[in-house]
């Protein structure tokens, strides 16, 4: 029977290294299947997150041969036969153990987002929204929170010191979803510009490239948000109107 060779990162916060495992190959498998078989037969304490095994929950993010991927959606037959496959935890967040990382950054940032706040209902007591008005926001709602976009964003990947001042692509998608929600009335521009650090993003589109849901993060979420910030803060006409009326942002 064919064998596959996998190099899995084993370690914790204090450090670690890749360790080699050989297991029998089986038809039609994905990377996560092989990791599970290693766990069941050779490394029972191998730490890995997973839930749905169908690309819907975003738990099993890792770097497979250096590329950020969902292990459950990466088929083994996409690699040349005999190639050693190297799996590392996502790099942008601190390791906890083996392939599991500390992604609490994302949950903390989410707490700071001002909640959805709908305006009044229609006169007949309903909420009317048309499909074409919700299509874009539904695209953002496809996000499975795998945090691969966060992982590749060089603002935090290469510069962890930016993390306090930068929310990252996942949160920009979330903010865009709220800002473009047809019913929402809350104001988040201050947060987007200041605490979320939208200005750090220089639209290299790395996040869009790795999104397993195909969300056009840069084009559809980040750039429109940047435009809103520019209009609100730097449009001279709006600035003048505010000055005259004594309004503050």
């Amino acid at each position, binding site marked *: 029977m064919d064998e596959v060779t996998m190099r899995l990162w084993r370690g*914790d916060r204090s450090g670690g290294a890749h360790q080699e495992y050989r297991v029998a190959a*089986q*038809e*039609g*498998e*994905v990377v996560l*299947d092989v990791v599970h078989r290693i*766990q*069941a*037969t050779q490394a*029972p*304490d*191998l*730490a*890995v*997150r*997973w*839930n*749905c*095994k*169908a*690309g*819907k*929950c*975003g*738990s099993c993010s890792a770097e497979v041969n250096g590329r950020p991927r969902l292990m459950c*959606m990466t*088929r083994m037959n996409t690699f040349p036969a005999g190639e050693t496959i190297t799996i590392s935890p996502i790099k942008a967040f601190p390791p*906890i*153990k*083996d392939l*599991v990382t500390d*992604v609490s950054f994302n*949950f903390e940032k*989410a*707490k700071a*987002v001002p*909640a*959805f706040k*709908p305006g009044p209902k229609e006169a007949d007591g*309903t*909420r*009317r*929204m*048309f*499909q074409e008005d*919700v299509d874009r*926001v*539904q695209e953002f*709602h*496809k*996000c*499975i*929170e795998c945090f691969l976009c966060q992982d590749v964003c060089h603002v935090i990947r290469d510069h962890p010191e930016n993390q306090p001042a930068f929310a990252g692509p996942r949160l920009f998608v979330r903010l865009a979803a*709220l800002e473009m*929600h047809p*019913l*929402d009335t809350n104001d988040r521009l201050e947060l987007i510009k200041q605490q979320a650090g939208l200005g750090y993003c220089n639209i290299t589109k790395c996040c869009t490239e790795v999104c397993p849901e195909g969300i056009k993060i840069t084009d559809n979420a980040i750039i429109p948000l940047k435009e809103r910030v520019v209009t609100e803060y730097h449009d001279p006409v709006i600035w003048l109107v505010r000055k005259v009326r004594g309004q503050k942002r």
Partner: protein
Amino acid sequence: MAVADRYETHEYDVVVIGAGGAGLRAAIEASAQGAKTALVCKSLLGKAHTVMAEGGIAAALRNVWQEDSWQVHFRDTMRGGKLLNNWRMAQIHAQEAPDRVLELEEWGALFDRTADGLILQRDFGGHRYARLAHVGDRTGLEMIRTLQQHAVHKGIDVYMECTIQQLLKDGERIAGAFGYWRESGKLVLFKARAVVMATGGIGKIYKITSNSWEYTGDGLAMGLDVGADLIDMEMVQFHPTGMVWPPSVRGILVTEGVRGDGGTLKNSEGRRFMFDYVPEFFRAETAETEEEADAWYMDKTRRRTPDLLPRDEVARAINAEVKAGRGSPHGGVFLDIAARRDAEYIKKRLPSMYHQFKELADVDITAEAMEVGPTCHYQMGGLRVDADTTATTVPGLFAAGEAAAGLHGANRLGGNSLSDLVVFGRRAGLYAAEYAAGLSGSAAVDDGEVEAAACAMLAPFEAEGGENPYAIHADLEACMHELVGIIRTESELLRALDEIGRLRERAKRVSVQGNRQYNPGWHLALDLPTMLTVAEAVTRSAIERRESRGGHTREDYPTTDRDFGQVNVVTRRVGEEIRVCQEPLPEMPDELKRILEEKG
């Protein structure tokens, strides 16, 4: 080390265990009622099984069909459940589901829209009218994210990657819950006045399942251990359409929405075999020929296609076709939507199905048929609850969602799960908070009991050279799949009981490698007794019900039996033993009986 130094302690009015739809909704409600509330979950927040729900949430909103009403939804639910349902739960569910869906919209959920801007509803098996509010085929994701974000904004304390292993009592009433942090392996005690079980189902005792690792029946086993009743444990739903190939994805769900949106089932001869499997119970409302069924897609006032019979019927039919040698190459049948719908329609309505087959099976569902077969999907049985308050038979213990039983009877209709989660999740939070507020003084936890639990949890580290927990789990899955699967018979069920007994002995000798930090082998070792308890409850209940009904099919008792239609099979722990008995269903009031008797 002193007992109290071995674990951290938190104190709450209400502790909700499980953060899927039911747990989140319960926590939101308990917190809104002023109770100090904790939400404890085994995974990261937002990853619970609800995220995988695809087709939609059933509610008689009447946006597509004015004729719909709670009465029709109630009738569909009861008939789908083969009348074994708790009538009051079915009534409350049908009445409150529309409000809960609209509430999700108020909290930011964006369902697909009708032409005049309201929530669109789709057809599903067993529902007379197009009733399922949905977002393409990722409705569960929309729901869990909406609830998650709402809960976060309400400031509810969330304990992620924290597993509860045991409930604690003060006399007869609940006093707390004890468990461990998955990350550090450190032990944690929650003192609580009330606990809500929202731990979901039991699919991980089966080999082929649509369920994730979390579905080990924790809430059921923990409830049973502190004296709560379980009912209907023999009622396990095998969803008719799981993926069958490649082997690694076997069991992954293919939404019923495929059939709701026009997909039909065919055997290897190209025949639409469901016409051969229409039971008497549904004959009056089901189309008899392909022409008649096809006409229904255009005119929904016609009789429905048998492809959309309730799940138990379709799963049995597929099983029979495969057994008769008319299956697909990989042991399923064909599900074809490409023949009726164009590529654009399919990609818009079923984007994640398209993606899933393309990525995992190299199948383009807009051009070719899918191969599908039954997969263990849902447990109708679970903790016995009071219909209005969700209180179990143990004071202070409440249950909602898949962990609770009664609403779905012998078989759940698609779409009735998401609505169940929010209707009864809300009620669980409400009544748990009310109960907690009515208690004076804090509950006393017995240090000795906690210490004993701690020792038991750490025991697998003491043993060396013992059994591999993964191997025992695989053997349990195989045993349940082969002997307590879709079609059951007494001799096999008895063999399963013997095997479960042997597995229990092996589980006592389990040993784990490594340390307590994020150690899945240890976690699984702790889940084994839980899964074995649940497996035994399913098997004993399946032996007790000597008839075929809904999710329980007996080869040796192939028909429904009038007397068994009047009883629940109840599971209780008596000392070390798990025992089952029959108890009468609650009596339905006459006005609801009349709704059921109306012609469909």
